[in-house]
């Protein structure tokens, strides 16, 4: 198991390194010279050249890349030249919105989706199954940002229970910050909970047909016990795959949903940075997103092996 985890950890590092290379290379292709941008269009070529030298922009690409990686390992993501602040600080501030939002949405979707999926599979073909699946069918089909708009109309405009948008920083009023994230996380969670319910049901129905369930029944377990002790654990394999994917959707989803609620998340930081050609900031923000998603995949794979011991030993088919 330890060997398996170590191998995956190595893979994690390689993935991140390649991702860093791709991001660095892609953003290097971007038109626009940061030094020129900072000095404005009236700057003399000499002044631009001098600033390029100061910013280290005239060093060869591989040197700048290595410098970037080494800096990040020490927590130094560079300095944003449009916002005149350390990139790490800027990103850190935005993560205070983006990460809680994604995590809340994940927790809500699991708390709602998994039990409903199990319930539907156990009552397969009955009225309750139909009701749950029709609800999930609808939930899957609703765009999260559109659902956010509808939630705003109902809870913020009509009922006035929650703010329609905007965000109060955690250190000013954490209650208000929390209230500001309720509607966005609900909006994000609805489609994910519906997908989770569907996948859980499909997986459980699939394993319910397996021989070991019949064996468990034959040795005297009730259907409920057999499904709970043998079925759910096996059904978790495909569900885990989806859970890993979901976090990626959620993090990406925050970028869209924060637009509905005017939240100062990572998305808006990236958008502004791109339009202002602030490459250092874009680079830092994208690599942080990439690290978040990749770390989730690593945990998913390790959880996979914990759930199914068969996967730990196998090296080939």
């Amino acid at each position, binding site marked *: 198991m330890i060997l398996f985890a170590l191998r995956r950890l190595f*893979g*994690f590092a*390689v*993935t991140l390194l*390649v*991702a860093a290379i791709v991001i660095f290379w*892609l*953003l290097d*292709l*971007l038109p626009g010279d940061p030094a020129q941008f900072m000095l404005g269009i009236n700057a003399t070529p000499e002044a631009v050249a001098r600033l390029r030298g100061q910013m280290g922009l005239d060093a060869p690409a591989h040197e700048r890349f290595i410098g970037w990686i080494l800096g990040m390992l020490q927590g130094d993501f560079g300095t944003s030249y449009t916002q005149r602040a350390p990139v790490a600080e800027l990103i850190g501030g935005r993560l205070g919105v983006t990460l809680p939002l994604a995590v809340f949405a994940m927790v809500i979707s699991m708390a709602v989706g998994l039990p409903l999926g199990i319930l539907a599979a156990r009552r397969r073909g009955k009225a309750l199954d139909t009701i749950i699946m029709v609800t999930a*069918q*609808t939930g*899957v*089909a*609703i*765009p*999260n*940002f*559109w659902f956010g*708009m509808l939630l705003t*109309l109902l809870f913020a*405009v009509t009922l006035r229970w929650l703010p*329609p948008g905007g965000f109060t920083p955690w250190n000013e009023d954490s209650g208000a910050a929390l209230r500001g994230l309720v509607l966005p996380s609900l909006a994000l969670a609805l*489609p994910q909970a519906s*997908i989770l319910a*569907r996948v859980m049901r*499909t997986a459980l*129905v*699939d394993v*319910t*047909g397996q021989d070991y369930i019949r064996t468990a029944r034959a040795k005297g377990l009730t259907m409920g016990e057999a499904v709970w002790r043998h079925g759910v654990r096996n059904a978790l*394999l*495909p569900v885990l*795959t989806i859970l*890993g*994917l979901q976090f*990626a*959707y959620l*993090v*990406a*989803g925050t*970028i*869209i949903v924060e637009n*509905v609620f005017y939240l100062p998340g990572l998305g808006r930081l*990236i*958008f502004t940075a*791109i339009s202002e050609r602030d490459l250092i900031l874009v680079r830092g923000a994208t690599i942080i*997103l*990439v690290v978040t*998603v*990749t770390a989730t*995949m690593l945990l998913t*794979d390790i959880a996979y092996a914990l759930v*199914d011991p*068969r*996967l730990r030993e*196998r*090296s*080939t*088919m």
Partner: protein
Amino acid sequence: MRRLLSHPSLVIGLVATVIFLVIGLLSLVWTPYPIEQIDIGRRYLGPSAAHWLGTDNLGRDLASLLMSGTWTSFLVAAVAVAIGVGLGVPLGLAAVAWGGAVEWLVLRLTDFVFAFPAVIVAILITALIGPGAINAIVAIGIFNIPVFARVARGGALSIATLDFVAAGRLAGLGRAMIAWRHLLPNIMSLIIVQGTIQTSLGILAEAGLSYIGLGTQPPATSLGLMLRDAQGVFLIHPWLTLVPGLAIVLIVIALNIAGDGLRDAIDPRLRQGNPNVLA
């Protein structure tokens, strides 16, 4: 064919999907009004005989926009899923069939692509070449590849430990043949269910990307772009938000019902429907 048609949900879903497709296709040759026709004097009209769904904030005919937007959304999602299945499923199966270095490489590759959610890819492409519908196709398509690779691998892993795969190997089948003959048929249901999820997600993702301005650009339109246009006035004129949003919901539901029906129709285990096990 008759067997397929005996599944009511499949028929309902397919018919509904086809209706939306036809509406979308029709927009290529005919819409009640040209979608670029701006008429500020006739903006925010309610539904009437002249404008079936009313007009938007620029006085454009909402029904015409809806038809054209439906086509764009379908096109983007379908091409993106084709990219995902075409590249992802072979990768996932190869990982299980060959194992070892191949599996390691496929996993790293999927991890790697996964590390870039569609929005991030779209942002990077937009920064490089500017916004457009192609960005959405490429971004969603790229994100679909590891989804299908992972699902194919996840499904095939549990199949590969079963006896009939070992029997196939003893019978002298090569790895590619085992993947093709034994693994692929047994994960078809997973791929179809995932395919429906990804098509709906494709339409939803297109909507999301266009909504934040990275996808389809005016004067063309998509359901997501209509929502972007409606965003500024949605508290005063919720109708403009409700129409395209509901269209997305209905299309995605139709696709999913069709996919579920297809799954029941194709999967042999479910068709035999061993009732004892579930009693």
